[in-house]
């Protein structure tokens, strides 16, 4: 299984529609400061429901919509290619209307709940507290965290 494509619509610094095809193996994302590299990782976490708004450097959900507009919509679709063949498309759409905001999750086009999504991702070993994503500046987090928290990482695996 691997991530084969990320489609970003009006999420953070991304405009109306951006398609990022991805391949297996070792891909480096590079570019000037402030260009949007970390926002790509934020978009992926957003779509998979793995993020908290703290991790997104956002105060309120409207900060996630391009240009911070308070009436608008953003969405991110992550498409995986499955080992057994076929694809799995995970999408999250955020609608903000003044102070109201709603997030809708979709699995292969059909609406689902966040816990449905977590369960399905869990069968592919993608977990919310999984150590497969390291945010910018967090690399030494494992060293500075309390030792009990570090042990709990192994608890999860067992």
């Amino acid at each position, binding site marked *: 299984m691997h991530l084969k494509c990320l489609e970003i619509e009006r999420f*953070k610094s991304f405009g109306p529609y*951006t398609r990022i095809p991805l391949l297996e193996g*070792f891909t*480096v994302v590079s570019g000037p400061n402030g260009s949007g590299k970390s926002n790509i990782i934020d978009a992926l976490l957003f779509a998979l429901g793995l993020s908290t708004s703290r991790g997104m450097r956002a105060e309120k959900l409207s900060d996630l919509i391009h240009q911070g507009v308070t009436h608008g919509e953003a969405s991110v679709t992550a498409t995986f290619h499955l080992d057994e063949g076929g694809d799995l498309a995970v999408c999250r759409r955020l609608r903000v209307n003044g102070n109201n905001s709603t997030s809708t999750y979709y699995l292969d086009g059909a609406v689902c709940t966040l816990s449905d999504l977590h369960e399905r991702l869990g069968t592919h070993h*993608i977990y919310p507290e999984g150590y497969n994503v390291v945010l910018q*500046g967090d690399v030494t987090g494992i060293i500075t965290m309390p030792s009990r928290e570090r042990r709990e990482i192994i608890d999860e695996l067992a």
Partner: protein
Amino acid sequence: KRDAFMQAFNAVNTHFQSIFAELSDGDGHLALEDPENPFAAGLTLIAHPRGKKVRRLESMSGGEKSLTALSFIFALQRYRPSPFYAFDEVDMFLDGSNVERLARMLRHEADHAQFLVVSLRRPMIERSDRVIGVTLARAGHSQVLGVQLQQVEAVASQAS
């Protein structure tokens, strides 16, 4: 429950020892604060970078902490692989030769899983399979470019 934990702990520990030795040329292992009753206490990492006496984890340097943390993450991956990994500038504290070592390790691990690594450092760009360039378009939004291999050199020379 304790058996399942110990099985996971021992497996990750073995991986950690071999990966830490490869990444930082030293030796290190995981240790339970209370081996009799693991759930009553925490887990610590004992790591001596090349030729150094054991020190407290907190007194390590920025680069040493990064290599120790990355060794632990790779050890978890070997025990319980994830389909993809996304690392955002995990090489920021590393000197030139440690970035090289990490890039070689990533190259090797990428045979078993997909790695998406944000980096500004040249050795990473040079050892990757491909580079995705991100820039800010005139209209103020992010633009993503598929960088061809001969452009990799141009991107690498902008990195430092």
